[in-house]
Each structure stands twice: as C-alpha cells, then as structure tokens.
C-alpha cells in the first residue's frame, strides 16, 4: 500500500515545482530528440506489440501455396534445410542475445532432438508426440548448459558448451547398439501430419514453414515480453537487472531451455527431411554455422535470423561445395562482413535508414516535433 501510494501522489504534484525552468528543459530534450531522430525512425516499432497475427497467417498461407509451385528440385530441398537451420538459429539467438551465452553446442542439441525423434517415432509413438518429445529433450540438454554455464564467465562457457557438444557426439558414435554409431540410423516409418506427407519435399515445405512461423512468433513474443526485456537488460548490465528484481540465473536457464526447444524441434525435422541421421552433421561446423546465422542477422527480430539462415544455407550448399575457391571466398566474405557490418544484416537497413534520416532531417529542417512522438 504505501509503496504504490508514494509514486502516485508525487506524480500529481510534480509539474508546478519546476515551472520556471521547464522551457529551457524542453528545449534541451527537443535537441536530444532531434539528434536521435534517425534512430527513432529506424525503431523496430512499439516493443511488446507484435505484428498482427492475421498478417502473419496470410503470409504463411501465401508462402505455403505459392512457393512449392515456384521452387522445385534441389532448391526446394535446400529451402527446407534453410527452414530447419532457421529454427535452430532462432533458438540460438535466444540463448545468445537474451541468455548472453556464446554456445557452440546448438548443433549437438539438435542432435539430441533428432535422435529422440528417429528412435521413438514408429508404429507406437506418433509423429506429433515424437516431435514434441524431441523439443523437450532439446530443452533439457540445453538447460543443462545454462545451469552449468551460469556459474562461469563467457570465455569458459564456450569450452563448457564445446565439452557438452563433443560428449554428445561421442555418445552417439559409441553407443552403436542404440544410435547406429557413425553409420547412422534410418527413419522407421514415413511421417505424415495434418494430411501432409512429409516424405514429399513440397508437403515438407508446407509443414516446416508453418512450424518456422510458430517458432518466429514465439521467439518474438518472448523478446517483446517483460521476461524478454529483463533478459536483454541482463546481457547488458547484470546489476541493472538485479536492481530491477530479475532472478538472473533462473531467467538465463529459461532462455537456454527455450532455445533448446527450438533446436530439438529442428533436429527432429532434420531426421524427417533426410529420413536418416548420423552424428557427423551435428558437429562443431554446424554449430558455428548457426552462430554465424545469428550474428550476421544482428540482434534483431527472428525474421532477420530467417533471412540470414536462407542466405547462409544456400551459400553453404552452393558456393561451399565442390571447390576450395568457393570456401576461400566464403571465408573472406565472412571476415569482411564481420568487420564492416558490426550489427549484421539487421544493422544494414538501420545504417541505410540512419543515412536517409540524416538526409531527411537536413531537408525538412524542423522535423523534431513528430520525431519525438511518432
């Protein structure tokens, strides 16, 4: 009672206290506002509010209807893989930009989900149940890194995630009687869901698109929620988060768990896509590729992670194979991008808008009024 009362009352009486100085003050803020005009114009919209669900649904419906007609053959398969990677990368972006963990274990978390699905799914366990369990398994393993990782500093966390990833690899490779070892293991039955035959690349695309949009929606919701905000605060300044009453440890573990759910689902979908799983494709290189997707996307919305996943997957399937020169170009491109686009793809439009904003401000002269309010 007294706590809320204090701020309530003071709000009413605050204005007259500084009346003589208000003008100068307002001018100062207007100046500040003008300086940040470009940034405000570039703002990602009102946080906490999502793009209307209807728009998203229409977008999914369009994609699901149109794309399988336009894209076919190898490109559709790669597109499907890109969607899988996008899901895992969105998960990693939660672990990374909200949890504050630089993890190189995301591919291993995918492997856990993948193996859970491929070993469970069959006549007795249906596909939706197996996929959910894959997500759950991913969450548990990923949360483990969070629990251990919350105790160490970031450089050491990388090694801890590396240790987990290598251990998962070793278990898969050595437990041959269960996992098939390096030879891998095949899917026991064809999967279908919602009337879609997931063995067909077109139907697989329809399902994975829907799934990816669900993941994007959930990830954006998390980011926009108070919990997401608390997590973002925590990555910037742990004391600030503590001072706001955020239970940092618990929240970070939650972030790793949620990131793990998405990776587990993605792993399960790899198993369905290929009809086969082996330990090798969940190695360090895949984890690094996912980390690249996240960093190149910048710390923006899940949508930009999808874009960078698309680009990097097509690059890694096209440019990277068959020649060493392709790899060379890829490596150099990587370095250039990291050096010259500090905020990744997400930062590029902002840079552009910043330039535009400056231009616009110069032309309009007094754009400060709508600059503040928008």
């Amino acid at each position: 009672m007294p706590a809320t009362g204090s701020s309530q009352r003071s709000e009413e009486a605050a204005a007259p206290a500084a009346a003589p100085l208000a003008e100068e003050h307002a001018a100062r803020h207007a100046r500040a506002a003008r300086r940040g005009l470009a940034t405000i114009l570039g703002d990602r919209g009102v946080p906490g509010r999502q793009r209307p669900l209807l728009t998203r649904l229409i977008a999914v419906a369009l994609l699901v209807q149109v794309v399988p007609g336009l894209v076919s053959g190898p490109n559709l398969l790669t597109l499907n893989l890109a969607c899988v990677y996008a899901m895992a990368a969105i998960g990693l972006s939660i672990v990374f930009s909200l949890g504050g963990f630089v993890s190189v274990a995301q591919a291993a978390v995918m492997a856990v989900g993948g193996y859970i699905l491929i070993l469970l799914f069959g006549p007795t366990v249906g596909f939706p149940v197996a996929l959910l369990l894959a997500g759950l398994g991913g969450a548990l393993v990923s949360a483990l890194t969070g629990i251990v990782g919350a105790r160490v500093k970031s450089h050491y966390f990388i090694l801890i995630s590396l240790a987990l990833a290598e251990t998962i690899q070793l278990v898969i490779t050595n437990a041959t009687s269960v996992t098939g070892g390096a030879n891998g293991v095949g899917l026991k039955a064809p999967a279908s869901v919602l009337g879609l035959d997931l063995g067909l690349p077109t139907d697989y695309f329809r399902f994975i698109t829907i799934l990816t949009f669900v993941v994007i929606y959930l990830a954006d919701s998390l980011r926009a929620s108070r919990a997401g905000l608390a997590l973002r605060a925590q990555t910037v300044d742990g004391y600030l988060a503590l001072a706001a009453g955020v239970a940092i440890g618990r929240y970070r573990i939650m972030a790793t768990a949620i990131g793990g759910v998405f990776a587990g689902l993605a792993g399960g979908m790899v198993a369905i896509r290929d009809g086969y799983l082996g330990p090798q494709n969940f190695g360090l290189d895949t984890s690094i590729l996912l980390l690249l997707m996240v960093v190149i996307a910048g710390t923006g919305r899940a949508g930009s992670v999808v874009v960078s996943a698309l680009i990097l997957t097509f690059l890694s399937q096209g440019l990277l194979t068959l020649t060493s020169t392709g790899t060379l170009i890829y490596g150099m491109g990587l370095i250039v991008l990291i050096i010259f686009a500090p905020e990744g793809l997400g930062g590029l439009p902002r840079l552009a808008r910043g330039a535009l904003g400056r231009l616009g401000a110069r032309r309009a002269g007094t754009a400060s009024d709508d600059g503040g309010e928008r």
Partner: protein
Amino acid sequence: MSTFIQAVVAGIAAGAVYGLLGAGFSLAYKTTGIINFAHGDIAMLGAYVTFSVFGWGAPLFVAALAGVVAGGLAGAVMERGVLRPLYKRPLVAGILATVGVSVVLQSVIQLVWGSLPLTLPSLASSTPWRIGSVAFSPAQAVLLAVTIIVSTALIFAVDRTRVGRGMRACAQDSGVVVLFGISPERLYLTAFAIAGMLAGLAGALITPTIGLTPSRGVSLSVLGFAAAVLGGLGSVTGAIVGGIAIAVLRNLASVYVSAGYADAVAYLAIVLVLLVRVRGLLGDDLETVRSV
C-alpha cells in the same frame, strides 16, 4: 604399474605439443582478449611450409624454422588485417572472425598443397629406448625438450622484458601500457606474431606423428583452447601443464575406462575444474562489484 607409467609418459610427450599450442593461444588471449579459433590452422600452415621447405632439400631443422617463421607471419597478418578493428567489439565477433580466418587458411592450404595427406620425417629417430618396461623414443625426447626450452624462454620473456611486462599490463588495462613506452597496437602485433610462431613450431613438431591434412587445424585449435582454459586463460605455464594434463588424462581414460569415451572423460575433468575454480575465485555469478 608399468602400464600406468607408460600411459603417463606417452601422455606427457603428446601433451607437450598441446601445451605449446595452448601457450600461444593463451598469450594472444591474454594480451588482446581474442579467442583464436584459427590457431590450429596457423599450426597446420607452419607444418605445410615445413613440408615444402624440407622438400626443396633443406635440412629438417631449417625447414622447421621456416615453418615457425611462416606461423609468425600468419599470426601477424591476421592481427593486422582482421582482428585490429574487433578488439572493442563483443566476444563473438572476434571468435567468428577467427573462424573466418580458419576457413580461409584451410582452403588456401587445400589450393596450394592439395587434399592428399602428406607426411614429414621425425626430427629424431622414433626407435624407442627401453627403460624398464617403459618405451620412450628419441623423437619424443626431442619434442619434450623443445617444449621445455621454448616455454621456459617464453615465461622468462614475459616476466623480464619490457614487451612481456607490457603484455601482462595489457591484460589488466590497455591504457596502462602507454606507461611502458609501448603502443598497445605494437603489443598486440607482437603477441600474435609470437603466438603464430608457437603454433608454427607446434605444427612442425606434431606433423611427424600425425601427418598433414588440410582440416586437421580445427582439432588442434580445440586442443589448444582446452589446454589454455584448463591451465587458466592467460598463463603460459598453465597452458603447458593443461596440455600435458589433458593428454595424460585421455591416455589413462582410454586404458582404464574406455577408449571411445576418453575425450569425454577429459572434458568432464575440465568442466569440473572450471566449476570449482571459477566459483572459488568469484563467489557469485557476477565477477566484481560495479566500480564506483
């Protein structure tokens, strides 16, 4: 008992090279704060250069020196060309840039030397001496001796020279090094050049045992990283000890536990050490109190 001793002795010899890798890794990290995932690839570059120079008819010793120089150059070029703009940026930017360098080095190696595995003869005979029932070869002895000499020199240099003290100061506060009359940029360059030389040396030393393949660098980076972290990031002595500890642990695990899970045992040990040590040092999840 002799099995145990043999496993330990062989582990020490193998671990010495991991230690060298870790020492370079640690030195670069200590000065610049960058975790270098291209470290192992620089080692492979040094090894490939050693191979070529040896192939032109130079004595192995000279060829190895050429490999060391090549490693140093690669380290310096990497620092200048890639890492310099990244020191003020988040950890992950530096890491991914070094991954980029690793990709570039691997493809350069593949373009220049091809993907067929290549090999080098040892610096010394690999016919073992027998001490009791424990075998120990001159090649292993040379490896160990070089590691001890180089790391002692390195520790001495870091402790006693102006540049070395600058590096240590850099780890605390890059502003302070100006007081030593050295620019931080030069220190960073020196640190990466030395780290590269250590990597090149490790590459030249390890090649006779493992041969040359373009993508071997990744596992060497991981080993160096693990050695450096286990020993305590930033400490040269720690890295050497860490490297040897990892190799010995792996050997003992594969003899007495399971060869398939030897790496897992080593990683588990590292994680346990980290948990105890880091908690002991910091007490909480936040390192220090916000400065007033």
